[in-house]
Protein backbone atom coordinates (compact mmCIF):
# COMPACT_ATOMS: atom_id res chain seq x y z
CA UNK A 1 0.00 0.00 0.00
CA UNK A 2 2.78 2.43 0.85
CA UNK A 3 4.57 2.21 -2.44
CA UNK A 4 6.56 5.20 -3.64
CA UNK A 5 4.12 6.10 -6.46
CA UNK A 6 1.22 6.20 -4.01
CA UNK A 7 3.22 8.34 -1.64
CA UNK A 8 4.08 10.77 -4.42
CA UNK A 9 0.50 10.92 -5.66
CA UNK A 10 -0.66 11.56 -2.14
CA UNK A 11 1.99 14.27 -1.75
CA UNK A 12 0.70 16.00 -4.88
CA UNK A 13 -2.85 15.80 -3.55
CA UNK A 14 -1.64 17.26 -0.27
CA UNK A 15 0.12 20.08 -2.07
CA UNK A 16 -3.04 20.86 -4.05
CA UNK A 17 -5.06 21.00 -0.86
CA UNK A 18 -2.22 22.98 0.68
CA UNK A 19 -2.33 25.55 -2.14
CA UNK A 20 -5.93 26.28 -1.26
CA UNK A 21 -5.06 26.67 2.41
CA UNK A 22 -2.00 28.77 1.58
CA UNK A 23 -3.91 31.17 -0.72
CA UNK A 24 -6.82 31.60 1.68
CA UNK A 25 -4.51 31.96 4.68
CA UNK A 26 -2.27 34.47 2.89
CA UNK A 27 -5.35 36.64 2.35
CA UNK A 28 -6.23 36.46 6.03
CA UNK A 29 -2.65 37.27 7.00
CA UNK A 30 -2.60 40.23 4.65
CA UNK A 31 -5.65 41.74 6.35
CA UNK A 32 -4.53 40.84 9.85
CA UNK A 33 -1.07 42.29 9.28
CA UNK A 34 -2.25 45.52 7.70
CA UNK A 35 -5.61 46.32 9.22
CA UNK A 36 -5.18 44.30 12.47
CA UNK A 37 -8.61 42.78 12.01
CA UNK A 38 -10.04 39.34 11.30
CA UNK A 39 -12.24 38.99 8.25
CA UNK A 40 -14.99 36.45 8.81
CA UNK A 41 -16.41 37.02 5.34
CA UNK A 42 -13.17 35.69 3.86
CA UNK A 43 -14.61 32.23 3.18
CA UNK A 44 -17.45 33.82 1.25
CA UNK A 45 -15.01 35.36 -1.22
CA UNK A 46 -13.71 31.84 -1.74
CA UNK A 47 -17.32 30.75 -2.31
CA UNK A 48 -17.95 33.61 -4.75
CA UNK A 49 -14.81 32.56 -6.64
CA UNK A 50 -16.32 29.09 -7.00
CA UNK A 51 -19.70 30.40 -8.08
CA UNK A 52 -18.22 32.95 -10.44
CA UNK A 53 -16.31 30.13 -12.12
CA UNK A 54 -19.41 27.94 -12.27
CA UNK A 55 -21.50 30.80 -13.68
CA UNK A 56 -18.93 31.74 -16.31
CA UNK A 57 -18.13 28.20 -17.43
CA UNK A 58 -21.50 26.50 -17.19
CA UNK A 59 -24.13 29.21 -17.65
CA UNK A 60 -22.34 31.65 -19.95
CA UNK A 61 -20.19 28.98 -21.59
CA UNK A 62 -17.05 31.12 -21.62
CA UNK A 63 -13.57 29.56 -21.80
CA UNK A 64 -11.61 29.15 -18.53
CA UNK A 65 -8.83 31.57 -19.44
CA UNK A 66 -11.48 34.30 -19.62
CA UNK A 67 -13.63 33.18 -16.71
CA UNK A 68 -10.94 32.96 -14.01
CA UNK A 69 -9.48 36.49 -14.39
CA UNK A 70 -12.91 38.10 -14.79
CA UNK A 71 -14.34 36.29 -11.76
CA UNK A 72 -11.33 37.22 -9.62
CA UNK A 73 -11.48 40.82 -10.78
CA UNK A 74 -15.23 41.11 -10.07
CA UNK A 75 -14.68 39.76 -6.58
CA UNK A 76 -11.90 42.31 -6.09
CA UNK A 77 -14.47 45.00 -6.93
CA UNK A 78 -17.10 43.50 -4.60
CA UNK A 79 -14.59 43.37 -1.74
CA UNK A 80 -13.43 46.90 -2.54
CA UNK A 81 -17.00 48.21 -2.26
CA UNK A 82 -17.65 46.16 0.86
CA UNK A 83 -14.59 47.58 2.60
CA UNK A 84 -15.49 51.15 1.65
CA UNK A 85 -19.10 50.82 2.73
CA UNK A 86 -19.04 48.71 5.90
CA UNK A 87 -15.46 48.38 7.21
CA UNK A 88 -13.96 51.78 6.55
CA UNK A 89 -16.61 53.72 8.52
CA UNK A 90 -15.83 51.58 11.59
CA UNK A 91 -12.05 51.80 11.42
CA UNK A 92 -10.51 53.99 14.11
CA UNK A 93 -13.84 54.40 15.93
CA UNK A 94 -14.09 53.16 19.53
CA UNK A 95 -14.56 49.38 19.63
CA UNK A 96 -13.55 48.89 15.99
CA UNK A 97 -11.74 45.64 16.75
CA UNK A 98 -15.06 44.04 17.74
CA UNK A 99 -17.36 45.96 15.41
CA UNK A 100 -15.38 44.89 12.33
CA UNK A 101 -15.70 41.24 13.41
CA UNK A 102 -19.47 41.66 13.65
CA UNK A 103 -19.60 43.54 10.35
CA UNK A 104 -17.63 40.90 8.46
CA UNK A 105 -19.68 38.09 10.06
CA UNK A 106 -22.79 39.90 8.85
CA UNK A 107 -21.36 40.40 5.39
CA UNK A 108 -20.53 36.69 5.28
CA UNK A 109 -24.09 35.69 6.21
CA UNK A 110 -25.43 38.11 3.63
CA UNK A 111 -23.20 36.73 0.87
CA UNK A 112 -24.09 33.12 1.74
CA UNK A 113 -27.78 33.85 1.54
CA UNK A 114 -27.32 35.93 -1.58
CA UNK A 115 -25.67 32.92 -3.22
CA UNK A 116 -28.43 30.65 -1.89
CA UNK A 117 -31.12 32.92 -3.37
CA UNK A 118 -29.30 33.37 -6.64
CA UNK A 119 -27.88 29.91 -7.35
CA UNK A 120 -29.86 27.72 -4.93
CA UNK A 121 -28.64 25.23 -2.36
CA UNK A 122 -27.66 22.40 -4.71
CA UNK A 123 -24.13 21.11 -4.90
CA UNK A 124 -23.06 22.22 -8.35
CA UNK A 125 -20.31 20.48 -10.27
CA UNK A 126 -17.75 22.30 -12.34
CA UNK A 127 -15.69 20.38 -14.91
CA UNK A 128 -11.89 20.33 -14.84
CA UNK A 129 -10.50 23.29 -16.71
CA UNK A 130 -7.71 21.09 -18.06
CA UNK A 131 -8.81 17.62 -19.11
CA UNK A 132 -6.69 14.57 -19.06
CA UNK A 133 -4.11 12.98 -16.89
CA UNK A 134 -0.34 13.12 -16.91
CA UNK A 135 1.05 9.57 -16.72
CA UNK A 136 4.58 9.25 -15.56
CA UNK A 137 6.45 6.26 -14.00
CA UNK A 138 3.19 4.49 -13.39
CA UNK A 139 1.69 7.45 -11.59
CA UNK A 140 -1.27 9.52 -12.70
CA UNK A 141 -1.72 13.25 -12.09
CA UNK A 142 -4.78 15.14 -13.30
CA UNK A 143 -3.64 18.13 -15.31
CA UNK A 144 -6.07 20.31 -13.40
CA UNK A 145 -4.31 19.50 -10.14
CA UNK A 146 -0.98 20.41 -11.66
CA UNK A 147 -2.57 23.63 -12.92
CA UNK A 148 -3.63 24.47 -9.35
CA UNK A 149 -0.09 23.91 -8.09
CA UNK A 150 1.48 26.00 -10.85
CA UNK A 151 -1.08 28.77 -10.44
CA UNK A 152 -0.50 28.91 -6.69
CA UNK A 153 3.24 29.12 -7.14
CA UNK A 154 2.97 31.88 -9.74
CA UNK A 155 0.49 33.85 -7.62
CA UNK A 156 2.54 33.56 -4.45
CA UNK A 157 5.76 34.59 -6.20
CA UNK A 158 4.06 37.51 -7.98
CA UNK A 159 2.45 38.58 -4.77
CA UNK A 160 5.76 38.45 -2.92
CA UNK A 161 7.41 40.56 -5.61
CA UNK A 162 4.62 43.15 -5.34
CA UNK A 163 5.04 43.34 -1.57
CA UNK A 164 8.82 43.52 -1.75
CA UNK A 165 9.46 45.65 -4.81
CA UNK A 166 6.65 48.02 -5.69
CA UNK A 167 5.66 51.38 -4.29
CA UNK A 168 2.33 49.92 -3.20
CA UNK A 169 4.14 47.05 -1.47
CA UNK A 170 6.39 49.44 0.44
CA UNK A 171 3.37 51.47 1.52
CA UNK A 172 1.57 48.29 2.53
CA UNK A 173 4.47 47.07 4.67
CA UNK A 174 4.95 50.50 6.22
CA UNK A 175 1.26 50.68 7.14
CA UNK A 176 1.41 47.17 8.59
CA UNK A 177 4.50 47.92 10.69
CA UNK A 178 3.60 51.33 12.05
CA UNK A 179 0.42 52.97 10.91
CA UNK A 180 1.17 56.39 12.42
CA UNK A 181 4.66 56.57 10.96
CA UNK A 182 3.21 55.53 7.59
CA UNK A 183 0.78 58.45 7.70
CA UNK A 184 3.71 60.76 8.42
CA UNK A 185 5.28 59.50 5.17
CA UNK A 186 2.18 60.73 3.34
CA UNK A 187 0.73 57.26 2.78
CA UNK A 188 -3.07 57.31 2.33
CA UNK A 189 -3.65 54.39 4.69
CA UNK A 190 -7.40 54.29 4.11
CA UNK A 191 -6.85 53.61 0.44
CA UNK A 192 -4.18 51.03 1.32
CA UNK A 193 -6.74 49.28 3.56
CA UNK A 194 -9.34 49.17 0.79
CA UNK A 195 -6.93 47.81 -1.82
CA UNK A 196 -5.51 45.31 0.67
CA UNK A 197 -9.00 44.05 1.44
CA UNK A 198 -9.68 43.66 -2.28
CA UNK A 199 -6.40 41.82 -2.88
CA UNK A 200 -7.02 39.52 0.04
CA UNK A 201 -10.47 38.65 -1.30
CA UNK A 202 -8.97 38.05 -4.76
CA UNK A 203 -6.59 35.45 -3.34
CA UNK A 204 -9.50 33.62 -1.71
CA UNK A 205 -11.54 33.91 -4.90
CA UNK A 206 -8.70 32.47 -6.94
CA UNK A 207 -8.47 29.50 -4.59
CA UNK A 208 -12.23 28.99 -4.80
CA UNK A 209 -12.13 29.20 -8.57
CA UNK A 210 -9.25 26.76 -8.96
CA UNK A 211 -10.74 24.24 -6.54
CA UNK A 212 -14.33 24.45 -7.78
CA UNK A 213 -13.86 21.37 -10.02
CA UNK A 214 -12.39 19.35 -7.14
CA UNK A 215 -14.92 20.20 -4.46
CA UNK A 216 -18.39 21.05 -5.65
CA UNK A 217 -19.83 24.56 -5.44
CA UNK A 218 -22.47 25.53 -2.88
CA UNK A 219 -23.32 28.58 -0.76
CA UNK A 220 -21.62 27.17 2.36
CA UNK A 221 -18.41 26.00 0.75
CA UNK A 222 -16.49 28.91 2.31
CA UNK A 223 -16.85 27.73 5.90
CA UNK A 224 -14.28 24.94 5.84
CA UNK A 225 -11.55 26.92 4.05
CA UNK A 226 -12.03 29.81 6.48
CA UNK A 227 -11.66 27.55 9.51
CA UNK A 228 -8.71 25.73 7.94
CA UNK A 229 -7.11 29.04 7.04
CA UNK A 230 -7.50 30.23 10.62
CA UNK A 231 -5.75 27.02 11.74
CA UNK A 232 -3.00 27.66 9.19
CA UNK A 233 -2.58 31.27 10.27
CA UNK A 234 -2.21 30.26 13.92
CA UNK A 235 -0.03 27.29 12.97
CA UNK A 236 2.32 29.43 10.92
CA UNK A 237 2.31 32.39 13.32
CA UNK A 238 -0.27 35.17 13.17
CA UNK A 239 0.84 37.86 10.74
CA UNK A 240 3.62 35.83 9.07
CA UNK A 241 3.45 35.35 5.29
CA UNK A 242 6.00 32.56 5.27
CA UNK A 243 3.98 30.93 8.03
CA UNK A 244 0.72 31.22 6.07
CA UNK A 245 2.24 29.69 2.93
CA UNK A 246 4.33 26.94 4.52
CA UNK A 247 1.65 26.31 7.16
CA UNK A 248 -0.89 25.86 4.35
CA UNK A 249 1.24 23.25 2.62
CA UNK A 250 2.08 21.49 5.89
CA UNK A 251 -1.59 21.19 6.79
CA UNK A 252 -2.48 20.02 3.28
CA UNK A 253 0.22 17.33 3.36
CA UNK A 254 -0.72 16.17 6.86
CA UNK A 255 -4.36 15.81 5.87
CA UNK A 256 -3.58 14.05 2.66
CA UNK A 257 -1.18 11.53 4.21
CA UNK A 258 -3.55 10.88 7.09
CA UNK A 259 -5.95 9.44 4.53
CA UNK A 260 -3.45 6.61 4.00
CA UNK A 261 -3.80 5.53 7.63
CA UNK A 262 -7.28 6.65 8.64
CA UNK A 263 -10.55 7.17 6.84
CA UNK A 264 -10.98 10.64 5.40
CA UNK A 265 -13.60 11.43 8.04
CA UNK A 266 -10.70 11.81 10.50
CA UNK A 267 -9.07 14.57 8.45
CA UNK A 268 -10.37 17.44 10.58
CA UNK A 269 -9.26 15.66 13.73
CA UNK A 270 -5.73 15.61 12.30
CA UNK A 271 -5.71 19.34 11.54
CA UNK A 272 -7.11 20.37 14.90
CA UNK A 273 -4.71 18.03 16.72
CA UNK A 274 -1.87 19.60 14.79
CA UNK A 275 -3.09 23.02 15.87
CA UNK A 276 -3.30 22.02 19.52
CA UNK A 277 0.16 20.44 19.45
CA UNK A 278 1.67 23.60 17.93
CA UNK A 279 -0.13 25.83 20.43
CA UNK A 280 1.22 23.73 23.29
CA UNK A 281 4.84 23.51 22.16
CA UNK A 282 5.17 26.83 20.32
CA UNK A 283 2.32 29.25 21.03
CA UNK A 284 3.69 31.95 18.70
CA UNK A 285 3.33 29.57 15.76
CA UNK A 286 6.02 27.94 13.65
CA UNK A 287 7.38 31.18 12.24
CA UNK A 288 6.38 33.71 14.88
CA UNK A 289 4.97 37.01 13.72
CA UNK A 290 7.87 38.42 11.79
CA UNK A 291 7.49 41.83 10.26
CA UNK A 292 7.21 42.10 6.51
Amino acid sequence: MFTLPIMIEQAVNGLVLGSMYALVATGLTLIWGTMKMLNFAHGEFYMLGGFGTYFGLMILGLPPWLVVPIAVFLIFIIAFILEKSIISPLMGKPGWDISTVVATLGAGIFLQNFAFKFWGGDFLNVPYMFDGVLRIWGMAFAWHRLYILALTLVVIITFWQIVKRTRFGLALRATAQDNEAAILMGIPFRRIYTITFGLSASLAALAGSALAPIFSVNPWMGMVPLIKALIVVILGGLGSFTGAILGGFILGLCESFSVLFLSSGWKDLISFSLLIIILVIKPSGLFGAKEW
Partner: protein
Amino acid sequence: MLEVKDLQIYYGDAQALWDISIRVRPKEICTLVGANGAGKTTLLKAICGLVPVAAGKISLLGKDVKAVPANERVSLGLSMVPEGRKIFTGMTVEENLKIGAYVNKVWNRKEEFLGKNYDLFPRLKERRNQLGGTLSGGERQMLAIARALMSQPDLLFLDEPSLGLSPKFVDHVMEIVRSINDQGVTILLVEQNINIALGVAQRGYVLESGRIVMHDDAGALLANPHIKEAYLGM
Protein backbone atom coordinates in the same frame (compact mmCIF):
# COMPACT_ATOMS: atom_id res chain seq x y z
CA MET B 1 5.38 79.52 7.19
CA LEU B 2 3.32 78.07 10.00
CA GLU B 3 0.71 79.88 11.99
CA VAL B 4 -1.28 78.33 14.79
CA LYS B 5 -4.01 80.41 16.41
CA ASP B 6 -6.03 79.81 19.57
CA LEU B 7 -5.77 76.04 19.31
CA GLN B 8 -7.79 73.95 21.79
CA ILE B 9 -7.13 70.24 22.04
CA TYR B 10 -8.83 67.54 24.08
CA TYR B 11 -7.76 64.04 24.96
CA GLY B 12 -11.13 62.39 25.52
CA ASP B 13 -12.94 64.69 27.91
CA ALA B 14 -9.84 66.31 29.34
CA GLN B 15 -8.44 69.42 27.72
CA ALA B 16 -4.75 68.97 26.93
CA LEU B 17 -3.86 72.28 25.29
CA TRP B 18 -5.32 75.74 25.82
CA ASP B 19 -5.24 78.79 23.52
CA ILE B 20 -2.08 77.82 21.68
CA SER B 21 -0.80 80.44 19.28
CA ILE B 22 2.59 80.04 17.69
CA ARG B 23 4.20 81.28 14.52
CA VAL B 24 7.19 79.81 12.70
CA ARG B 25 8.88 82.15 10.25
CA PRO B 26 10.44 81.08 6.95
CA LYS B 27 14.03 79.74 7.14
CA GLU B 28 14.32 79.94 10.91
CA ILE B 29 14.95 77.36 13.58
CA CYS B 30 12.21 77.78 16.12
CA THR B 31 11.98 75.69 19.25
CA LEU B 32 9.20 74.56 21.51
CA VAL B 33 10.48 73.69 24.97
CA GLY B 34 8.86 72.45 28.13
CA ALA B 35 8.85 69.70 30.70
CA ASN B 36 7.80 66.14 30.07
CA GLY B 37 4.01 66.03 29.75
CA ALA B 38 3.59 69.72 28.98
CA GLY B 39 1.91 68.86 25.68
CA LYS B 40 4.70 69.44 23.18
CA THR B 41 4.24 66.21 21.26
CA THR B 42 0.46 66.65 21.27
CA LEU B 43 0.85 70.05 19.68
CA LEU B 44 3.15 68.72 16.95
CA LYS B 45 0.79 65.84 16.27
CA ALA B 46 -2.13 68.23 16.02
CA ILE B 47 -0.30 70.33 13.45
CA CYS B 48 0.51 67.15 11.51
CA GLY B 49 -3.13 66.11 11.68
CA LEU B 50 -2.65 63.04 13.88
CA VAL B 51 -4.60 64.48 16.81
CA PRO B 52 -8.03 66.10 16.31
CA VAL B 53 -8.35 69.81 16.93
CA ALA B 54 -11.41 71.06 18.84
CA ALA B 55 -11.08 74.73 17.93
CA GLY B 56 -8.56 77.16 16.49
CA LYS B 57 -6.72 77.65 13.25
CA ILE B 58 -3.68 76.02 11.66
CA SER B 59 -2.28 77.53 8.51
CA LEU B 60 0.62 75.96 6.73
CA LEU B 61 2.42 77.90 4.00
CA GLY B 62 -0.56 80.24 3.82
CA LYS B 63 -3.08 77.42 3.49
CA ASP B 64 -5.70 76.55 6.10
CA VAL B 65 -5.08 72.86 6.78
CA LYS B 66 -7.64 72.07 9.46
CA ALA B 67 -9.67 69.96 7.02
CA VAL B 68 -6.66 68.41 5.24
CA PRO B 69 -5.97 64.76 6.19
CA ALA B 70 -2.60 64.08 7.84
CA ASN B 71 -1.10 62.18 4.91
CA GLU B 72 -1.89 65.03 2.51
CA ARG B 73 -0.11 67.57 4.68
CA VAL B 74 3.13 65.85 3.70
CA SER B 75 2.58 66.86 0.07
CA LEU B 76 2.17 70.44 1.22
CA GLY B 77 5.77 70.44 2.47
CA LEU B 78 5.49 69.32 6.09
CA SER B 79 7.62 66.50 7.42
CA MET B 80 8.10 65.16 10.93
CA VAL B 81 10.75 63.21 12.76
CA PRO B 82 8.52 61.66 15.42
CA GLU B 83 9.32 61.07 19.05
CA GLY B 84 11.01 57.69 19.46
CA ARG B 85 12.13 57.76 15.76
CA LYS B 86 9.41 55.35 14.63
CA ILE B 87 11.57 53.90 11.89
CA PHE B 88 10.27 50.80 10.13
CA THR B 89 12.25 48.12 11.94
CA GLY B 90 11.32 45.31 9.55
CA MET B 91 12.51 47.20 6.47
CA THR B 92 16.03 47.86 5.31
CA VAL B 93 17.62 51.28 5.72
CA GLU B 94 17.20 51.93 2.00
CA GLU B 95 13.52 50.89 2.05
CA ASN B 96 12.96 53.21 5.00
CA LEU B 97 14.40 56.05 2.96
CA LYS B 98 12.44 55.18 -0.16
CA ILE B 99 9.18 55.15 1.74
CA GLY B 100 10.10 58.65 2.93
CA ALA B 101 9.75 59.72 -0.72
CA TYR B 102 6.29 58.16 -1.06
CA VAL B 103 4.40 61.32 -2.02
CA ASN B 104 3.81 61.85 -5.75
CA LYS B 105 5.84 65.00 -6.13
CA VAL B 106 9.12 63.32 -5.15
CA TRP B 107 8.64 59.58 -5.85
CA ASN B 108 10.15 59.69 -9.33
CA ARG B 109 13.23 61.52 -8.08
CA LYS B 110 13.82 59.28 -5.07
CA GLU B 111 17.14 57.88 -6.34
CA GLU B 112 18.54 61.40 -6.59
CA PHE B 113 17.39 62.32 -3.07
CA LEU B 114 18.66 58.98 -1.80
CA GLY B 115 22.11 59.89 -3.07
CA LYS B 116 21.93 63.30 -1.43
CA ASN B 117 20.98 61.71 1.87
CA TYR B 118 23.80 59.18 1.68
CA ASP B 119 26.23 62.06 1.22
CA LEU B 120 24.82 63.73 4.32
CA PHE B 121 24.76 60.46 6.31
CA PRO B 122 27.57 58.18 5.08
CA ARG B 123 26.84 55.84 7.96
CA LEU B 124 23.44 55.04 6.48
CA LYS B 125 25.02 54.22 3.15
CA GLU B 126 27.24 51.63 4.83
CA ARG B 127 24.18 50.09 6.44
CA ARG B 128 21.80 50.47 3.49
CA ASN B 129 20.87 46.77 3.28
CA GLN B 130 20.57 46.22 7.01
CA LEU B 131 17.17 46.03 8.68
CA GLY B 132 16.15 49.17 10.52
CA GLY B 133 15.71 47.16 13.70
CA THR B 134 19.43 46.32 13.82
CA LEU B 135 20.56 49.97 14.02
CA SER B 136 21.82 51.66 17.19
CA GLY B 137 19.86 54.50 18.78
CA GLY B 138 22.00 57.16 17.14
CA GLU B 139 21.79 55.51 13.73
CA ARG B 140 18.03 55.25 14.09
CA GLN B 141 17.85 58.97 14.78
CA MET B 142 19.93 59.61 11.65
CA LEU B 143 17.65 57.37 9.65
CA ALA B 144 14.53 59.09 10.98
CA ILE B 145 15.92 62.50 10.01
CA ALA B 146 17.10 61.30 6.59
CA ARG B 147 13.74 59.65 5.96
CA ALA B 148 11.89 62.86 6.84
CA LEU B 149 14.11 64.77 4.41
CA MET B 150 13.27 62.45 1.51
CA SER B 151 9.97 64.24 0.88
CA GLN B 152 11.94 67.50 0.42
CA PRO B 153 10.02 69.40 3.10
CA ASP B 154 9.86 73.15 3.48
CA LEU B 155 9.05 72.74 7.14
CA LEU B 156 10.60 70.03 9.31
CA PHE B 157 9.43 69.04 12.79
CA LEU B 158 11.86 67.29 15.10
CA ASP B 159 10.36 65.76 18.23
CA GLU B 160 12.95 65.18 20.98
CA PRO B 161 15.87 64.24 18.74
CA SER B 162 18.26 64.25 21.70
CA LEU B 163 16.32 61.65 23.66
CA GLY B 164 18.46 58.66 24.62
CA LEU B 165 21.59 59.82 22.80
CA SER B 166 25.05 60.40 24.26
CA PRO B 167 25.99 64.09 24.75
CA LYS B 168 28.57 63.82 21.98
CA PHE B 169 26.01 62.43 19.58
CA VAL B 170 23.49 65.11 20.55
CA ASP B 171 26.02 67.73 19.41
CA HIS B 172 26.36 65.85 16.13
CA VAL B 173 22.58 65.81 15.64
CA MET B 174 22.37 69.55 16.33
CA GLU B 175 25.09 70.16 13.73
CA ILE B 176 22.97 68.24 11.25
CA VAL B 177 19.91 70.26 12.22
CA ARG B 178 21.89 73.43 11.55
CA SER B 179 23.11 72.23 8.18
CA ILE B 180 19.59 71.21 7.12
CA ASN B 181 18.46 74.70 8.08
CA ASP B 182 21.32 76.21 6.07
CA GLN B 183 19.89 74.50 2.99
CA GLY B 184 16.71 76.51 3.44
CA VAL B 185 14.50 74.16 5.46
CA THR B 186 12.50 75.81 8.23
CA ILE B 187 12.69 73.86 11.48
CA LEU B 188 10.48 73.51 14.51
CA LEU B 189 12.45 71.70 17.18
CA VAL B 190 10.76 70.23 20.22
CA GLU B 191 13.02 69.55 23.17
CA GLN B 192 13.03 68.82 26.86
CA ASN B 193 16.67 69.76 26.95
CA ILE B 194 16.32 73.55 26.91
CA ASN B 195 20.03 74.29 26.83
CA ILE B 196 20.54 72.36 23.63
CA ALA B 197 17.38 73.68 21.99
CA LEU B 198 18.02 77.34 22.71
CA GLY B 199 21.63 76.86 21.67
CA VAL B 200 20.64 76.02 18.11
CA ALA B 201 17.35 77.93 17.68
CA GLN B 202 16.79 81.61 17.00
CA ARG B 203 13.46 81.81 18.78
CA GLY B 204 11.59 79.73 21.27
CA TYR B 205 8.20 79.08 22.83
CA VAL B 206 7.83 77.74 26.36
CA LEU B 207 4.96 75.34 26.99
CA GLU B 208 3.83 74.67 30.57
CA SER B 209 0.85 72.47 31.49
CA GLY B 210 -0.79 72.89 28.12
CA ARG B 211 -0.32 76.63 27.69
CA ILE B 212 2.29 78.81 26.00
CA VAL B 213 3.68 80.85 28.87
CA MET B 214 6.50 82.67 27.13
CA HIS B 215 8.04 83.31 23.75
CA ASP B 216 11.10 85.31 22.86
CA ASP B 217 14.46 85.21 21.11
CA ALA B 218 16.59 82.29 22.19
CA GLY B 219 19.16 84.51 23.90
CA ALA B 220 16.52 86.38 25.88
CA LEU B 221 14.91 83.13 26.99
CA LEU B 222 18.25 81.78 28.18
CA ALA B 223 18.72 84.93 30.24
CA ASN B 224 15.18 84.89 31.63
CA PRO B 225 15.09 84.36 35.43
CA HIS B 226 12.07 82.03 35.29
CA ILE B 227 13.71 79.80 32.68
CA LYS B 228 16.97 79.82 34.60
CA GLU B 229 15.28 78.76 37.78
CA ALA B 230 12.67 76.32 36.46
CA TYR B 231 14.60 74.61 33.67
CA LEU B 232 18.29 75.26 34.03
CA GLY B 233 18.52 74.85 37.80
CA MET B 234 20.43 78.06 38.31
